[in-house]
């Protein structure tokens, strides 16, 4: 049965965190499967996206558009860009099947833009899938602690 050890899972999450902190968005897209979903629920834990508005509910196509826009030089809410550093911990393997795993982790994300510092915290839920021998992200759900509060700008990739 092909699964990853927890330390291999952690390596994958750390690699993703570094890529996002460095805003290498094409490298991030390359970590995703073609049917990937990037989901940031609004107003709570995120139960049913067909009945709830989300802060983000992107399929791969929409995510590609998001990245194109972020890199266009015309995404004004990212001009100047968000500078971030994130710490990931409390990694748990929720489910491990052949070639598919569900991973939970906590994150603390430091954010700086125009001299204003903010801290975001929450839980990542990654669905990983092994595609032709490479482990990829098939779904990423970001449950922000403050997703029912006023958020000024969340236009970076969380």
């Amino acid at each position, binding site marked *: 049965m092909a699964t990853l050890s927890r330390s291999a899972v952690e390596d994958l999450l750390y690699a993703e965190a570094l890529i996002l902190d460095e805003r290498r968005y094409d490298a991030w897209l390359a970590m995703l499967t073609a049917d990937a979903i990037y989901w940031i629920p*609004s107003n709570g834990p995120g139960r049913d996206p067909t009945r709830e508005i989300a802060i983000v*509910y992107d399929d791969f196509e929409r995510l590609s558009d998001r990245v194109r*826009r972020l890199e266009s030089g015309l995404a004004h*809410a990212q001009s100047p860009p968000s500078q971030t550093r994130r710490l990931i911990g409390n990694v748990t393997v929720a489910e491990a099947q052949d070639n598919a795993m569900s991973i939970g982790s906590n994150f603390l994300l430091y954010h700086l833009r125009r001299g204003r510092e903010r801290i975001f915290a929450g839980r990542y839920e990654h669905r990983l899938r092994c595609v032709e021998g490479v482990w990829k992200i098939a779904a990423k759900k970001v449950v922000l602690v403050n997703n*029912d509060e006023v958020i000024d*700008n969340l236009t970076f990739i*969380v």
Partner: protein
Amino acid sequence: MMAEKLDLNTLVEDHRVHRRIYTEPQVFALEMERIFESGWVFLGHDSEVAAAGDFKQVRFGSQPAIMTRDEDGAIQVLMNRCMHRGATICQEERGNARHFRCWYHGWTYNGRGELVGLPYPGGYGKNFDRSRFSLIRAAKVANYRGLVFASLSADVEELPDYLGKARYYIDLFMDLSPQGAVEARAGTHKYGYDGNWKFQMENGVDGYHANFVHQAFFEIQGKRLGRRVMKLFNETSPLESKDLGHGHSLLDTAPRRSSPRLVSNILRGQVPAEIGDAYVQSLVARNGEARAAEILAASNVNLAVFPNLLIIGIQLRNVIPISFNRTEVFLTPTTLCGVHEAINVARLRAHEAFYGPAGGGAPDDVEMFNRCQAGLAVKGAEWLELSRGLERETVGEDGVIAAHLTDEVPQRAFYKRWREIMCGVATAARPSVTLAAAGS
């Protein structure tokens, strides 16, 4: 500290406004008093308090209040302040409660705000009259097609008269449902910015900014959909901006989509064809072909209702002033009653693409509000120019002023009303306020 007399009348002219309406705390305080505490204010949708006991916290400017449905099914708007010693009596943003209890000393109120629980009543004298301690209630509460407005002053026009010509567009928005009703129970986007509340009200009906602020979104989405979205917002656009009176205004998208078949085709990209066609048929069945076409033409309305409501796309947008340089904005998407679920899912996903704190459009608008507030610190350039299209305005028989989509008709409409309220006839006795010298 230097103090000076400033005539509010001199801050707003027909085609320009002074930077001080955005930068003076004293002007903000007067706006709260004269606009948000004296006139109709949008609070929410009645489906947010669908059942008896449902409540939602709301605000009149900086004053906290509760919108709730009482046991008789009436919507009550109660100020969130215990009549004993002042604590707020409602803590959750939303919920369901038979009573509101102040946990400081246990005073308890029912859904009509009456004091029904007074712990250890023996300590109060025989003449203590509980009825004098009901929660403060909004003087007027009214519901127009599900939109709940309230006023802290009884001295206001009836709501339908106040809404005036905006009612026609609100009707179209609600009639997109084959039951003539929408629900606002799918959550809320909440964002804020370090700028004045009026920037958001100006921007929601600004046809001039779209091709600049949203260029990247339009180009990338346009490529994906094979549509040239930017043509809608350029100089040759057939669309219009309109002043509906009472400070209400509109970007009128009606000429764009006029036949049910056309809209059916637009839906086709988002929902299976048979679902789109069945939806259009349900509208035709209820309204007839002509009215159905009219309703569908308005499916992308940008409507501003003075002072704090924007209806854009599928959303009810509530603009909440916090201080002269801080604003919160709540975007509540609506779903249509009586349609296939797939249509409402498509509405939610379409809304997310552009709106909310991580959307592809709205955050770029918000960025401009932050930049405006920062730029207005510059002295010497005192005015913001709102004259675009002044010389090509037309006035219809119904009194509606119209000009090109990119013209600043809606912004002039807003400030016409602002000046009437802030320093007009009704308040002529108090047009001057003493302002501390700026920067001191």
